[in-house]
C-alpha cells in the first residue's frame, strides 16, 4: 500500500467536493479497493470515505413502491431490511462472507461492476434506477461492459431504486475459489413483463437474456426455456469453466430461478 490521505465527509456535497481533487477516490466498504491498494495496484492521493454520510445509508420504500437503498448501505443491511423485495434481500445475503457483507456497499459493487458480481444482476433484472449526485441513470444504460459503467469521474452513487417485482429469484452458481458468481441469474416478473439478467458469464459483463424473457413472458415456467440455447463464444472461459459450460449454466440457473421465484 502507498500512503494516502483519508477524509470522512458527512454530506454528499462535501464528498463531491473532496472528489474533485485529482487522484482522489471514493471509498465504500473497501472490499475491492483495499485489496487493490494492498497490492500497490492503485495510488490514490486521497480516499474519500462515503460510509459516514447518513443520507447515503439505509433502506426505505418510495411512494412508487420501489425499494430504495442508500449508496453506502452495506450488503448485510440490505439482506436484513429489503424484505419487500425478497429476491434482492436473498441476493445480498449470499455475497461473500459476513465480514464482506458488513462492509461492502451496494454503491461500491455497482460502481466497480465486476463481471462476476451479484448486484449488477439485481439492478438490471429489476430495471433499477441508479441515482448519483448529478443525475438518474436507468440500469439498461448504466452497465457498459466489464468494470465499465456510465459513471463519470468523481460521480457518486448515492442511492439505488429497485422496483419491486411480483416474483423474483437470484440463482447463483459459485466459482469454487472466490465464491463470486460463476454464473448468476436474476429473474424478476413484473406486471409488464419478465426481466432476466445474467452475471458471471459474459465477456461483456452483466446482460439481459432477451430470448428467455420472451419465452417467460409467454409462459412463466422453467419448461418455457427448453428450446432455448446460448452460445459459448462470447462467454468467459477460464480455469473455472469454459464458455460452453457457462452458457449451459445460464440456462440451468435461469430455469432454477424461475422455479424458485417467489
Amino acid at each position, binding site marked *: *500500500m502507498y*500512503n494516502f490521505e483519508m477524509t470522512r465527509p458527512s454530506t454528499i456535497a462535501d464528498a463531491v467536493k473532496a472528489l474533485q481533487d485529482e487522484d482522489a477516490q471514493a471509498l465504500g466498504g473497501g472490499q475491492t479497493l483495499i485489496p487493490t491498494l494492498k*497490492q*500497490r495496484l492503485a495510488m490514490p492521493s486521497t480516499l474519500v470515505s462515503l460510509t459516514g454520510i447518513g443520507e447515503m445509508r439505509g433502506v426505505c420504500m418510495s411512494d412508487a413502491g420501489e425499494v430504495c437503498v442508500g449508496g453506502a448501505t452495506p450488503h448485510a443491511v440490505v439482506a436484513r431490511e429489503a424484505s419487500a423485495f425478497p429476491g434482492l434481500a436473498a441476493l445480498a445475503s449470499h455475497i461473500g462472507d459476513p465480514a464482506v457483507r458488513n462492509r461492502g456497499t451496494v454503491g461500491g459493487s455497482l460502481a466497480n461492476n465486476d463481471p462476476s458480481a451479484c448486484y449488477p444482476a439485481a439492478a438490471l433484472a429489476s430495471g433499477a434506477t441508479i441515482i448519483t449526485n448529478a443525475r438518474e441513470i436507468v440500469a439498461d444504460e448504466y452497465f457498459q461492459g466489464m468494470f465499465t459503467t456510465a459513471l463519470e469521474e468523481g460521480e457518486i452513487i448515492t442511492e439505488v431504486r429497485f422496483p419491486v417485482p411480483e416474483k423474483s429469484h437470484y440463482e447463483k*452458481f459459485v466459482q*469454487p*475459489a*472466490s465464491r463470486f458468481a*460463476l454464473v448468476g441469474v436474476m429473474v424478476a416478473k413484473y406486471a409488464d413483463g419478465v426481466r432476466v439478467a445474467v452475471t458471471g458469464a459474459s465477456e461483456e459483463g452483466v446482460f439481459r437474456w432477451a430470448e428467455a424473457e420472451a419465452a417467460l413472458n409467454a409462459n412463466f415456467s422453467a419448461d418455457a426455456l427448453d428450446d432455448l440455447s446460448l452460445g459459448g463464444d462470447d462467454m468467459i472461459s477460464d*480455469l*473455472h*469453466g*469454459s464458455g460452453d*459450460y457457462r452458457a*449451459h*449454466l445460464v440456462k*440451468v440457473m435461469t430455469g432454477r430461478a424461475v422455479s424458485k421465484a417467489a
Partner: protein
Amino acid sequence: MPKDNSTVEGGIGAATVRREDIRFLTGDGQYTDDIVLQGQTHAIFVRSDVANGVIKSIDTSAAEAMPGVLAVFTGEDFAEVGGNPAGWLINSRDGEPMKEPKRPVLAHGKVRHVGDAYAAVVAETKEQAMDAAAAVEVDIEELDAVTDMTSAIAGGGLVHDEIETNICFDWGWIEDNRAATDAAIKAAPHVTTLELVNNRLVPNAMEPRASTADYNKGTGEYTLYTTSQNPHLTRLLISAFVLGIPENKLRVVAPDVGGGFGSKIYHYGEEALVLAASKKLKRPVKWTSSRSEAFLTDAHGRDHVTKIELACEKDGTFIAFRTETLANVGAYLSNFSTVTPTFLHGTLMAGNYTVPNVYVNVKAVFTNTAPVDAYRGAGRPEATYSIERVVDMAARELGMDPIKIRRKNFIKPDQFPFASAAGLEYDSGNYDRQMDKLEVMIDRDGFSARRAESEKKGMLRGLGLNAYVEACGIAPSNLIGILGARVGLYDAATVRVNATGNLAVMVGAHSHGQGHETAFPQVVAEMLGIDPMSIEIVHGDTAKIPFGMGTYGSRSLAVCGSAVVRATEKIIVKAKKIAAHMLAAADTEIELRDGQFSVAGTNKSVSFGEVALKAYIPHQFPIEEIEPGLEETAFYDPANFTYPSGAYACEVELDPKTGKVTIERFAAADDFGNIINPMIVTGQVHGGIGQGIGQALIEQTAYDENGQLLSASYMDYAMPRADDLPFYQVNHDDGTPCTHNPLGVKGCGEAGAIASPASVVNAVIDAMQSGGKNVTHMDMPLTPSRVWEAMNAKGV
C-alpha cells in the same frame, strides 16, 4: 503400553483438550513475525515475473539511493557460497547419480520460475524496502518456458543448461523385479490400465513463511527465528552446505509455527539472505512472506503423471502392479524432492495386498515452475491414489464388488510381519477388520435406498471406498543410509526433572499444529505416575533442545515419542536408585506406582517429588555411586517404518445438470496402533481428510504455457471451507500396535490426506456410471466444470 493400563488421570488414552490451543485461539501465540527486535530492518525480495530467462544485467544503483535503503543484494553476492542441497541421493536405473544443479541463495545468471528471487533489498522500513525493490532495474532476456513434463522430456528448452537434460533421474524400483513384472503382465488374463494425474497443490499453511536473523557482533553468534518444522535440520543445511556458519555459532529458533504440511521442512534462500544481511549490517533483518509470495515460492506438492497397470486373474487375484510416473520437481531440487516420488512412493506400490510382482519407474523432471516437494503424505498419497483407483477400475471391468476384490487380495492378519513385493516389511495390521468397521460406518446396506432418493430429485449418487497403508514414523537411519539419505532420521529427547518435582521435556520434534505440548506429557505422566500439567514440552530452539530431526512423515510420536520414553526410563532407573538410598533398600526392591517409590512388600515409600528434591539437594547422598541431578537424554532410531492402514469411504451426490459434487457421507476407519490422545488423533484425521477432499474436488494449481501461475491467489485457488466438507465419521479403535516401538504407536498426521482422495474420486465415478455415463476415470480436481465436461464428452 496399551491405554487400558492407564492409571494416571490425563495419561495415555485420555482425550485431553490441547493446552496450547488456548494461546493460539486467544491471540497469545508467538509466531516469527510477532518477534520484534530492537533496531530491526526489513528485507524485500525482487522476484522474476518470467518463468525462464537470462539475467543480462541488474542495476541496483537507483534502489540503493532510495530513502532508508541499507543494502541491496543480488545473486552475485552469493556466487561463492554453497547451494541448498537435496537431502537424498537417487541413482538412476543405469547407476548414474541424479542430476543436482545448484540452487543458489539468489538466482544468478538465470531465473527459472516466476517468483524466483534475483535480488533483495534491506531498508529501515518494509515500505521503503518495497519502494526500492521496485527500483531495481533488471534486464532479463525471456526464454521459452518449460512447464509441461512431457515436453520437458521431449527436449524443449533446458531449465538448467549445465546438466543438458531436464530429467533429474530415471529410477526403477525394484529394478531386479522389472523383468518378472513385465512377464507377469504379459501373461496375465486381465490387465487394467489407467493413466492419471495427481494434481499439484499449493500448501497454504495459515502462517506464511517468515525469517528474522539477528547477528550479534559481540559474540559472533547468529540467531535465526524462522518458520521451520525442524530447526536442527535447517541449521545443519545452512551451516554445512550453504553459508558455512559454524553450527556452534548459529542458533535456529522456530517459535509457534502456524502449520507447515511439509512446506516448512525445507531450508529456503530467504533464510540465508537475512542471515548474511544481518551480518553485513550488524542489525536484525526481518522478512515475512506475503500470501502472493507463498503461492509462488513455497514448495508445492504432488504433481505426478502416472500410468499404472494392474494385472489380475479373472477371479480378481492380483498378479502385478506396474507404474510409470513422471514426477515434477519444479525448477530446483528442494530438500526432500528426490525421496518423495521415489522411496516414499515406490515402496508403497504393493498397497495392502499380497500381490507378488511390483515394479515402479519414476522419472523426475525439471520444469520452470515452483519447486515441488513433500506435502502432507508425500509420495504415499500418490501411491494410494494410483493403486486404489486402478483397483476400483479393475473391479468394475471384472464385474466384481469393490470391497470383495480388495478383501480377496488383502494381507491377512496372520501373515504379519509381511514382506511386501515393493520391498517393505509391514509389521502389523488387520485390513479386514478396518473394512468391516467401514461397511457399518458408511451404512453400505442403506446405500441403494439413498441412491433412489437422490434419483427422485434428479441427482446421481455414488459410493466410493478404498484401503490404504502408508509408511511413516520415518525413518530407520541404517536402512535409509543404504538407500541414499544424506541425513539420519532418529530423534531425541531430554527429560529434566526440576528440584521441585516438575519437568521440562526438551524434544527434537517440532509442534506446529500436532498437539505435542499436550500429548507428550501424557506419555511421561503415565510412566511416572504424576500430573501431566507438571510437565512442560520445550521444542523449536537449537539452543534448548537436543539434536533432533523435527516433524514430518507422521514421525513425532513414533520416533521422538519413543525417545521421550527411553529418556524417561532412564529417569526412572536413576530415581529408583535415589529412592533406594533414601529408603535404605536395594534398587531392585523399589517399585514405582502412582508417583510413589516404595519398597516392595512394605509400607515404606518416598514420593517422586521427594526424590527430585534429593537429587538437587544431595545432602547425605552417595556421590560415589550416584551423580546429583535428575536429567536424562535419549536418542531413538526406529528399527523400521510404522505402517498405519485403514479403509475410507465417501458418498457423494452429483448434480448432473451442473457437475457439482456434494459429499454426503465420509467415513474413515484407521489403524494407528495404540492411541495416546484420541481427540488429537481425531483432529488430525479431520484435517487430513479436509486436505484430501480439497485435492480431490477443488484445489487446482494451474500454470499457463508461459509458466505464469494462474491460480496464484484465493480468488482462483480454492481451499476447502467448512461447508465444502461433511461431518466425518472417524474411528481409530482396535488398532494393531506397532511391534517395534515402545508405545506401539504408528502415527496419524498424514493418513487423512493420503487415503481420502481415492474414495472421493471412486464415489464420483460410481455416481456417473449410475447415471449411464461411461466415464471410467477423470483427473482431480473434480470441479463442477470438469465433471460436467467429462459427463458431456463425446462418446460418453
